[in-house]
């Protein structure tokens, strides 16, 4: 059986959807961060896929996914540092407890 573009694309889109769902429903900040990671990884898969199946003449998509991975790592590092920073005062990473600023 030959693997087509769609057979890779559907899992990546499902992954992206799971990421959005997780980000919106999870109450734990670390779990939200994991959901964000899922979304960013779905994007990386997408770029590599389109490049490999549709535009294999150049390497623009592969290069972009390399950069996207690096950016995702930087984002996670900053986010983790800030979550730890909050945890030190609130002793908690539950977003229902971190709600002192609201209208």
């Amino acid at each position, binding site marked *: 059986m030959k693997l087509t573009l769609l057979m890779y694309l559907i899992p990546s889109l499902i992954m992206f959807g799971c990421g959005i769902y997780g980000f919106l429903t999870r109450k734990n900040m670390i779990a939200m961060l994991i959901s964000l990671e899922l979304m960013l990884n779905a*994007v990386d898969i997408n770029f590599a896929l389109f490049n490999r199946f*549709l535009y294999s003449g150049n390497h623009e998509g592969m290069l*972009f996914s390399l950069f996207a991975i690096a950016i995702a790592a930087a*984002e996670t590092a900053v986010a983790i540092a800030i979550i730890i920073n909050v945890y030190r005062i609130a002793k908690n990473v539950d977003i229902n407890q971190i709600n002192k600023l609201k209208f």
Partner: protein
Amino acid sequence: MDYSQFLMMPQEIGLLAVFLLVFLYDTFMPRTTQRALPLVTVVFFGVYIAWAFLPPAAGKCFGEMFEASNATWGMKNILNIGVFIVLLQSVKWTNNDFVSVRRGEFYELILLTLLGMFLMISARHFLLFVIGLETASLPLAALAAFEKRYYESREAAAKYVMTAVFSSAILLMGLSLLYGACGSLYFSNLAFGISAVNGINWMLIVALAFVMAGVGFKISLVPFHLWTADVYQGAPTAVTGYLSVISKGSAAFAFMVILVQVFGTLYQEVWQWMLYALIVLTITVGNLFAMRQRNLKRFLAFSSVSQAGYVMLGVIAANQVGMASMMYYILVYIFSNLAAFGVVMAIENHCGKVTIDDYNGLFKTNPWLAFTMMLAMFSLGGIPPFAGFFSKFFIFVGAASTGSVAIYVLVFIALVNTIISLYYYLLVVKAMFIRQDECAIERFKSHWTERAAMVICVAGIIFVGLASCVYTSIVTLVEESPNLFMMI
């Protein structure tokens, strides 16, 4: 490699030089000289501004990824002026006992984010654009968490970083769909790819919506504005001022370039209407929420949401008049908003009071602060003869220059909202001048750097509107930048 390409980016090189000098000073100078670091940064930055005003180089470099034109040159100089005021305002705050250990980091991160915004403005390839966007947004999360002694600052940073990463994931998804549809990430190639598509391609529409959502977050347009008030309230006031004018202004310019250059052929059918809805929502919701705020920083946050809607009026015009009026609006907005933040910061540094009720009777005790705040509020509300009136006038002219009836209606909605916004801007003026309070903020003398920043802002508010040469030169700059509106 052809190293002469670097001559195309004199402003970025100069900024990088300032960053390196500040970094070396922070790292290697003895402890006793560290207290001078903020002023040294201000001086370096002032020299750099003079350098950045040298006549622009125009052209493309680095495989056409980076474009320097007269319009980008003008926009970067407008941002430079704003950053100079922010740096001047923050001198006193970074010298207090709690922040002074980390003051070097504050200046380094501010300069780095500015570099990211410059890349965003000049990028003609989405890879460079994304790198610029991330360079501009990640250090801002660290800056929002800068006041470590306050819990609010940490919470604000957590909210900012979560929403920033979420929106950039959405943006990247949009870009991947765009790449799938057109096979390139160069703005010019994408534009030709999109114009070759017949009829409606749903993949492109989804990609456009995702890109608008991702960048709209940075400008805090309404469905994506939920982070704004919390972050503005919790972050240190210097960072709030930076976020509200510099970050917003650069993102608005980059947004216009992307919409016009990449999605130019979809203007009539698609993105004009998307942006239409966003503008109506942004102006109205921003105004309605601003009315019920008691905390001044939160109030300014919602006011800046509604101002972002006015900035977008220049984008929806999608022509040279629109772009020129948008740049002018951002320039005026920098002066008026930073004047307001300057007063808020001076009072907060002195006694830590930030609610509107604390300002009761301010005119009796501190007439000059009250006067500056009044000018800022008048300018934000658009009362003649201050600059805010002229910027609103030109942005309405810019939007109306398209001549379509729907946009006339939009301009009318914006006009009605201007009247609503006058109500809450004048609430602050009323508190300062009319209402009395026994325990009003006592008379105090603000730091000379804060006063200098306020003088620059007041001069800007009064003269940028009256001196017509400012608007004319911005129009000339935009007209000298060809090919910008080729695809419309």
